[in-house]
Structures are given as C-alpha cells and as structure tokens.
C-alpha cells in the first residue's frame, strides 16, 4: 500500500492570493451575471459547503465516506417536512433543527462505522447511506421516490430569501462561516488530533488519544455541516427527492474533493466549483454529425475523472501550487 496522498494544509501566499481574488469574484458576481448563472453559482457554493464537510473526514481525518450525501439529504427532507403547504417557516429555528437532525443521524451511524477502517469504512458508510435511501424511498409520508416539494423558502425575517440575489449572499455568508469554522477547527487541538489520527492512528492511541471519540465527533460535525448544505439545497430548489442521498451524490462529493485538493478546505471549494462547471460544460456540448455529445455527458465526466486521477492526483490546488511554486519564493 502506498503512502497517503500528500496534503496541503498551509497554502503558500501566492495560492492564498489567488483564492482571495476568487472570493472577490464571488462577491461581485451577481452584479455581472444573469439569473441563470447566479443560481448556478449559488448551487456551486452549496455543494462547496457539502464538499468542505466531507473534507473534515476525508482530507483531515483520513476517513473516506461514500455515504456522506445521506446527511445532506436528511436535512433537506427535514426542511421539507417542517415547511407547511401554504406558508413559509422561520429560518432561525428550522436551520438548527435540520442540522441537528443530520448531526444526530451521523452520530448514530458514526457509532457503527468509525469502528472500521480504510476500505471497510468506505463500504460500510455506503451501505448505511443506502439503508437511509431505501427508508425514504419506501416511505409514502416522505413522498417515496417522487420526493417532496417545498413551496416557500424559509422566512428569515430581516431579509427576504425569496429574492435570488439575497439568497445568493446568504449562501455566500454560510460558505464563509463554515470555511472559517473549519479552518479554526483544523488548527485547534481537536483538529490536530484528527490530523494525527490520519497520519498514524495507532500512535495517537498509544499517546493517549481515544481515537473512537475523536472520529465519532468528526463524523457528527461533518454530518451536521452537510446538513446545512442540504437545507440550503432544499430551500434553493424547492424540492427534495431520494436521489439527494443516493450513491451518485455521495460519489460526486468525493470527486469534487479530489478534483480540488484535500486537507485545507479551500480545495473543497475549488473542487465543487470546478466539478459543477465541468459538468455544465459537458452537458452543453454540441452535436457532431448525428452524435449528440451533450447528451452523453456522463461518459465525458467519467473519462475526465479517470484522467484527473491518472495525471493530477493532488487535484487542481496541487496543480496550482506546482505552477505557482516557480514564482513563489517564500515557502512557509
């Protein structure tokens, strides 16, 4: 077995500068873009929150979960379930409740899964997510395979989330809060312990860290944060269905994370944005002769992912770091 992939916890200044430019672009974007693109970028930011939450497990703690979408979906369903047919529901208590629901589910499932390691963990998380998928899929009260509609976006009181631009900035604010929270967490003693578990769990246990509790906490926090993304997703699209918690959703989050680069949360944002952009690009491909290339976007995304893993295993941020490394003198 090879050594774990290199991680990029402390980014060089040049990369940080480029990321800051990206943030400025995000802040100004609604003024330059049409409704369609504004909604697309809102979706990217929601997925970036989801990808960051998985990064806490995958990039920081070394736990690759193939069932992370379960918690994303649970919170979306929580919002759908709490929203009455004819009116909006307050953001201020439903968001915490949805995140708690996702976190509680993660705590219960985590109790079973964090006892396992490596490839076993991948399989078990996928199986548990599938169990939740079937639970919803076969439940008439939750709309079964048809899903549920959320007719009204949550009511925030102070600002109007029905306004697309307001929703965009609210999502951006959530993204920044989660990023700041996770960065803070990463450099706290708790985060250092998680990173230690990734590098060598046996050593951490020998030094006296009960790795079970740390991993379970990470799994729960990651589940709750995925819940925030799921809540926002439900609010934006006004619709939830079992596919939100399905295998392909979980798989796509992993792809985003590896595409961007793991271990420092910025990679998760870059990966989510890039993955969605590439997806849109492939879906928009023109027809060549009688061959409708856009219709077969799954083929291109598959080949793209295979190419990434063959040629850029450290993701886009790793690639960026290698390119900027040439004019980057201060290695910190």
């Amino acid at each position, binding site marked *: *077995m*090879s*050594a*774990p*992939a290199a991680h990029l916890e402390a980014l060089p200044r040049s990369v940080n500068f480029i990321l800051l430019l990206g943030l400025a672009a995000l802040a100004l974007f609604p003024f330059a873009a049409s409704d369609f693109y504004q909604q697309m970028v809102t979706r990217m930011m929601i997925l970036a929150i989801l990808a960051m939450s998985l990064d806490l497990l*995958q990039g920081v703690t070394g736990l*690759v979960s*193939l069932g992370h979408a379960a918690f994303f979906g649970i919170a979306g369903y929580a919002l759908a379930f709490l929203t009455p047919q004819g009116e909006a529901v307050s953001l201020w208590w439903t968001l915490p409740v949805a995140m708690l629901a996702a976190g509680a589910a993660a705590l219960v499932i985590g109790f*079973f*899964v964090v*006892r*396992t390691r*490596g*490839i*076993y963990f*991948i*399989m*078990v998380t*996928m*199986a*548990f997510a*599938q*169990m939740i998928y*079937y*639970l919803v*899929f*076969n439940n008439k009260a939750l709309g079964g*395979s048809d899903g549920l509609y959320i007719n009204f976006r949550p009511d925030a009181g102070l600002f109007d989330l029905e306004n697309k631009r307001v929703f965009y900035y609210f999502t951006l604010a959530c993204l920044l809060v989660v990023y700041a929270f996770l960065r803070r967490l990463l450099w706290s003693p708790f985060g250092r312990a998680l990173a230690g578990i990734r590098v060598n769990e046996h050593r951490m246990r020998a030094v006296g860290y009960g790795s079970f509790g740390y991993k379970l906490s990470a799994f729960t926090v990651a589940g709750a944060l995925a819940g925030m993304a799921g809540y926002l997703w439900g609010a934006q699209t006004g619709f939830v269905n079992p596919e939100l918690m399905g*295998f392909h959703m979980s*798989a796509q989050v*992993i*792809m985003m994370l*590896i595409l961007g680069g793991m271990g420092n949360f910025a990679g998760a944002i870059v990966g989510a944005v890039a993955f969605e952009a590439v997806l849109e690009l492939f879906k928009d491909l023109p027809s060549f002769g009688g061959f409708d290339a856009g219709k*077969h976007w*799954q*083929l291109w*995304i*598959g*080949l*793209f*992912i*295979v190419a*990434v*893993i*063959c040629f850029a*295993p450290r993701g886009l941020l790793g690639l960026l770091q290698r390119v900027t490394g040439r004019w980057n003198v201060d290695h910190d």
Partner: protein
Amino acid sequence: MPTTAERSAVFYGFSSHLDDLVDFANFLIQLLNGVQYGLLLFMLAAGLTLIFGIMGVVNLAHGSFYMLGAYLAWSLSSHLGSFAAALVVGTALSVVFGLVLERVLFRHFYRRDHLDQVLLTLGLIYVFEESRSLLWGDDVHGVPIPPLLRGSLALTDTLSYPFYRLFTMAVCVALALGLYLLISKTRLGMKIRAGAFNRDMTEALGVNIKLIHAVVFALGVALAAVAGMIAAPLSSVYPNMGSPVLIMCFVVVVIGGIGSVRGALIAALLVGLVDTFGQVLLPQIASMLVYMLMAAVLLWKPEGLFRS
C-alpha cells in the same frame, strides 16, 4: 421502468405472503430462493474480495461487470440464437475485457492509495454506464429462459421448483468449488496466495507476478459477468442494474470479512436468506433487514466474521 422493489421481486422470484408460509412446502421454496440468491451474491462478492485481497485494489466498478454480463447475455443470445453459446462467448469476451482493463488501467493502481482507486473506479462507473447506453440503449429487456431449462422439477405432488433456478445454483456451486480448488490445491493457486502475502518476495523467487495479477483480475471480472449472464433471465436487463448489486456485494463483504472467500460464501447465504424470508415475513421493513444484519455484525465484530 420497474421500481426497485418490483425488480427485486423479479430477481428473487417470489410472490407469496405470510399465510402461505405456514405451508412447509412454501417454506422450502423460500429456502431454495434464499440460497439461490445467496449463491449468486457469492459469485459477485468473491470476485470483489479476491481482487481486493490479492491485489489490494478497491473496485467500485464491480457492479458494472455484472451489468456487462447481463447485457452480453441478452445481446449475444438474440444474435447467436442460443443461450449456451452466449454464455461461452460472453465469458470469453469478459475475460478479454478484464485482461485489457487490467493492462491499460488497473495495473498502475496496485500500489496507489485506496482513495485513488476509489476515484478511478467511480469514474469508470460513469464510463461503463454511458458506453452501455451508447451500445445497447436504455430499454429494459427480458432474456428468455433457454428451452432446455424451462419447466420445473416436481419436489412433491403439489410442489415444484423451476429448473432454471436449480441451474443457476449448480453453476454457482460449480464455480465456487472450482475457485476453492484453484486457490488451495493448484500450483497457480499457491503462487496467487504467495503473491498476496508478499509480492516482492514472490517476484524475487521467479514468479511472474504481473501475469498472475492479470489472471486474478480477469477471473474477478469474469465471475461478476457470469453472475450477470445467468441472472439475466431471472432479473431482466436494465440500465443501472449494477448499483444495487454493488451495494449488496459490499454488505456481503463487510459481514464476511474482507479478503475472505469463505466469509463471503457464508455472508452471502446469510444475506440471501435474511432478504428472502424478510420479504415474506416482514415486507414493511424488508429492504432494511440486511442492513440491520450488517449493523449487528459490525457491533459484534467490526472486522467482519472471517477477516483473513
């Protein structure tokens, strides 16, 4: 398109309920169905666990090989006009497919991180799924049971069991036996086991480990494809049919213990029986039962029943 529940009903082949089961005869039928489903799962899980145990490769695209087998069975049997010929040609094609795939892609991933393997095979799922769509379209197809295997065997005066299901059991048992003999009794099996234990040392002793890995990989692909081929007349052939199968394989491997072929056999039979009887006795929560079984095993033995 049929729902998952309908598909599984076809796949497991039952339609009875609690009161029917009072009858011992029906109990026997369910038992046979459970064993038959379990044996089919075993063929799939054995390939998955073999490839992992020997090469250390996580293969999420294993369900796609099952799908490939089913589509080959449908396509070849309608072109060749014979299910038996389709089985032979289909097996040969899937072995070639496995060898090419190993050579072009998987070979370069043996020593890489599991995460890289996960991503590679996730990408491949999309490639295979869409290639299937381009090659064979998105319709659901039935594969007729070959004439020789139609009809059923009379077990008692009132009770009979379809020949075709008995045939699938026979194929699975024969392959399981063959696999056991290959790995534990032959010279090649000895080299395979040595290579899994210590790759470099085995290579230093003059064993062509690259060739052995290629053979094992192709064997794993062929096992999944053959399972798909013989399941095709029972389950019909439809898009995305690999995903639920892959997940069931994971459940089996988690329960049995990764890398253990014996564990896979016992876990597959257990899953097959729990699922089949669950559908009859507790239809409301049937789709959850195998996962509950998995959770219980994990609580008791986090590494599975027979971790090798």
